[in-house]
């Protein structure tokens, strides 16, 4: 056989052509599978490869007061983000940014941790750049690739500390919040309401963020943007209109007794609309926007005055004598007392009961008083006997029914409920013993196991001013009124209570110096014992045009304010300001009888009443 004979060659060529055909056929089959059969899967994968969704932030809704004045708004701010990249290169850029932005080592670590959670997303570094920082960054742009400086609306509260507790603030969403199901749509670095109204109405104000798609390369660098129609537009947040009167709130904050701690709540009778709600000392919510500095945070947290505590809704104080009005109302309602009659035991500076001597605040005693007189002079001995007539169990039951053991239901996230026994078992649970009937003596004068907020007392007085009823206090205009307090009291009984309150600011009353020239201003002082120092002073008031219905209910608590005379002056000045504004009168800084006397003005009007 010839090795390279034509026939041999033909045969081998044929075999080799078969091998060739098989090899190429095998490749062809593979490509048919990949390109034709599995095309849609791979096409999808290539789209997912190149497109990255980026959030389009929705502008947050503004907040207005009842007259349309701005409480919270968005102003242009500048945010800085870094486009996705390798961790080392991000780290290097953060180190370069640190001196400009004042990033601490810990802050950088936190940012790196956030980056590793979402490596494909832009990393938000700062959402509130100052103009100096902006200028420095623009200078360094060449050394900081992938830097994204964007205009981003920034939250601003024009009234600052005046509305700090009330409006709260927005800040970056925390890790814990991100894990909660209600914040599923939120991205790291996004702003979220953290306190006050911003938190309460987060879902309303926030709106819905949109999406835009960018094209990225294999390194995750953005190389282009998809056309406009591919965007999912953000739904802007809705505006929030408040019942608050910002001008009044400003006044409230301005004249709050210097350097003292306390709170004021002003509620409109009948409607339950909150007109002012203030806690002193306050803080500037603008400090929190875009991240609060650690120094400022420490300052606020370690301040013994606790500026972060919203005393108006979360500060609990024994209501003291202001609570006597409730005792009186309940007694009238139950018919256990004749308001025109005097009590069997006259006040001699105290009374004996159950083997104990219960004191009145006035050592020399009040003698015999009817109900209005007892309210005027705040006589403990009268109310001790009233409490005994009502009985402990009934007092607890009715006070609980009215809401003294629950929150008022205001639309704020931090409200604390009143601390009040909801029945005799409460003592068993709390202290391990059942109360004796002597307990009712303390409770009847607002002492004992009873702590309330300024807002609760304001609401109670607003109910008195509105014929016995009031819906739950509220700040948002759009909110449907919820059931609040109902005293179920007859008009003739109400008249007696109001008469008692009127005498408090009349000549001879405990707060006569708080009387106002142009308005009816009636109320009740209160003192709550303070184990740590001077007693806290309460004043709960109703005010309105002369001879008309009350148009504002105010409760003031001033810590270490003693006896309520500071509180009464303060409440009177707030009521005067509100009513003058409402009826178009020029505001004046000389308002109360005390101020008239000090200023040497004519006090003729006070004698005529």
């Amino acid at each position: 056989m010839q090795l390279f004979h034509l026939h041999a060659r033909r045969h081998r060529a044929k075999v080799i052509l078969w091998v060739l055909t098989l090899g190429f056929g095998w490749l062809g089959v593979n490509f048919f599978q990949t390109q034709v059969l599995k095309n849609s899967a791979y096409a999808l994968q290539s789209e997912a490869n190149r497109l990255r969704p980026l959030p389009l932030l929705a502008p947050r809704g503004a907040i207005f007061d009842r007259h349309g004045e701005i409480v919270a708004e968005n102003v242009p701010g500048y945010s800085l983000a870094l486009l996705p990249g390798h961790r080392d290169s991000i780290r290097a850029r953060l180190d370069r940014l640190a001196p400009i932005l004042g990033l601490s080592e810990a802050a950088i670590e936190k940012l790196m941790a956030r980056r590793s959670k979402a490596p494909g997303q832009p990393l938000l570094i700062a959402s509130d750049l100052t103009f100096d920082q902006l200028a420095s960054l623009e200078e360094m742009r060449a050394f900081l690739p992938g830097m994204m400086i964007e205009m981003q609306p920034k939250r601003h509260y024009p009234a600052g500390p005046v509305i700090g507790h009330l409006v709260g603030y927005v800040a970056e969403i925390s890790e814990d919040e991100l894990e909660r199901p209600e914040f599923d749509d939120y991205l790291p670095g996004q702003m979220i309401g953290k306190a006050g109204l911003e938190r309460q109405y987060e879902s309303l104000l926030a709106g819905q963020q949109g999406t835009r798609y960018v094209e990225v390369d294999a390194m995750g660098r953005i190389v282009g943007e998809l056309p406009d129609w591919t965007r999912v537009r953000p739904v802007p947040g809705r505006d929030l209109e408040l019942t608050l009167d910002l001008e009044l709130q400003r006044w409230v904050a301005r004249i709050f007794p210097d350097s003292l701690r306390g709170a004021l709540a002003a509620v409109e009778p009948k409607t339950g609309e909150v007109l002012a709600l203030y806690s002193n000392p306050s803080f500037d919510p603008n400090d929190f926007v875009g991240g609060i500095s650690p120094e400022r945070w420490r300052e606020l947290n370690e301040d013994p005055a606790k500026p972060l505590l919203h005393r108006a809704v979360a500060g609990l104080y024994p209501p003291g004598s202001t609570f006597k009005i409730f005792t009186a109302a309940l007694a009238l309602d139950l018919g256990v007392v004749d308001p025109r009659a005097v009590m069997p035991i006259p006040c001699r500076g105290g009374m004996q009961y159950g083997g104990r001597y219960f004191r009145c605040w006035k050592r020399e005693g009040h003698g015999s008083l009817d109900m209005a007189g007892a309210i005027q002079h705040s006589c403990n001995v009268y109310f001790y006997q009233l409490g005994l007539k009502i009985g402990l169990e009934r007092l607890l039951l009715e006070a609980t029914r009215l809401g003294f053991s629950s929150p008022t239901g205001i639309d704020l996230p931090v409200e604390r409920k009143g601390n009040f026994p909801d029945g005799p078992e409460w003592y068993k649970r709390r202290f391990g013993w059942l109360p004796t009937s002597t307990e009712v003596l303390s409770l009847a004068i607002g002492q004992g196991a009873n702590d309330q907020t300024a807002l609760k007392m304001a609401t109670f007085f607003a109910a008195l001013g509105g014929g016995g009823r009031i819906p739950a206090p509220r700040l948002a205009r759009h909110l449907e009124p919820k059931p609040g307090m109902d005293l179920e009291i007859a008009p003739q009984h109400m008249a007696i209570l109001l008469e008692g309150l009127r005498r408090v600011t009349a000549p001879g009353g405990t707060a006569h110096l708080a009387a106002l020239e142009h308005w009816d201003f009636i109320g009740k002082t209160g003192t709550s014992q303070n184990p740590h120092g001077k007693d806290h002073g309460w004043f709960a008031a109703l005010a309105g045009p002369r001879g008309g219905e009350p148009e504002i209910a105010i409760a003031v608590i001033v810590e270490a304010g003693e006896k309520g005379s500071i509180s009464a002056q303060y409440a009177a000045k707030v009521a005067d300001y509100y009513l003058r504004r409402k009826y178009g009168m020029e505001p004046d800084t000389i308002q109360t009888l005390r101020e008239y006397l000090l200023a040497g003005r004519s006090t003729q009007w006070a004698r005529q009443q």
Partner: protein
Amino acid sequence: MIGRLRAGVGDPVLLVLVILLSLFGVAMVYSAGQLDVPTVRVQDVWRLQLAWLGVALIAFYVVLRIPVRWLEWITVPAYVVSIILLAATLVIGQGFGTAKGTKSWISLGPLTFQPSQFANLAVIMMLARVMGNWREPPRSITKLLLPVGIVALPMALVALQPDLGTALVYTSILLVTLYWSGAPVGMIFMLVSPVLGLLLSFATLPFTIYMVALIAFLYFYRAYLWESALVLFANIAAGAIAIPLWDKLAQYQKNRLLVFLDPSIDPRGAGWHVIQSRVAIGSGGLFGKGFTLGTQKRLAFLPEQHTDFIFSVIGEEFGFVGTVGVLLVFGAILWRLVRIAERCSDPFAGIVVFGIFGAWFAHIIVNVGMTAGVMPITGIPLPFLSYGGSFLVAAYLGVAIAQRIASEQGKV
């Protein structure tokens, strides 16, 4: 000149196909540089590729004028020079650009070239020189030792530069030329059986079955006793060293092989190439995304898109129609080579043509198979399409030799 050219060109169809394919290759290298991300490196290489095509055509024209006889005369010196150059690259070789890790280039002033690309031709000629003298089929495996040695020497030198793909090409050249020279298939099987033994030894059961089958084969094939003993010993030895050998491999080499079995074990590392190439090809669909418009390529998801993975660009931009079209052209080119060799009464010429066939066949199957993820990643280029000067010129030298052979055989 045209007349002389026509006289030298024995197979105009082959020449036209090759030139068309090369021009298409330049266009694809151009497309590979059209990215949406800044790429200084790849953007303008198509101009270089075009220049290299010019150089290749000049080389083609020159080599076309060399009679086959002369080639036979210079075979031994060419082989020796090649071996020296390969050895030299181990010492003075450099790596460039994407192939920085390897040291397969030699610089001559401003010019750099890869000796291994030209060594292929010398090896093919050397094999032809030896096996062309066979007058009868090899009777025992000892006859194959010389051809194996001819290939093994450069292969060993190339394998020392980390370039596993080239080793596969040499194997292909050897097997095809052996077959063409009349070596019985059974004997070729005995030759490669240790490699099978090496691969199968990673699992006990397949290896046992394989050894039983091997013994049965040796019995029925009536191999010499010593031959059988040698083959068995080689297989057992291969099985024994498999695991130590595996441990000696560099991690990236292990990864490449493991990823070939399952790309998803390392999607960001070694598997990245395979996955992204498959996504590029798969998303091309039937008709592709259009010339220069492949998104996987534009956004730099495709690695080495102008060299090793140029076929993925074709798949993405021209779809199944494009890949089948290119494969058909390759098929036609190889078919022409078979036809030329078939007509060769001169054994040396025929073996040379089949050597070229073996080299290109291996390049195409391994490279194209790699882009589809059915072959391991080896880093060998695609003839006429991948960017690379030395390889293009070497391929055109191969075409020139084949053309010269065709024309001389036609004259005879």
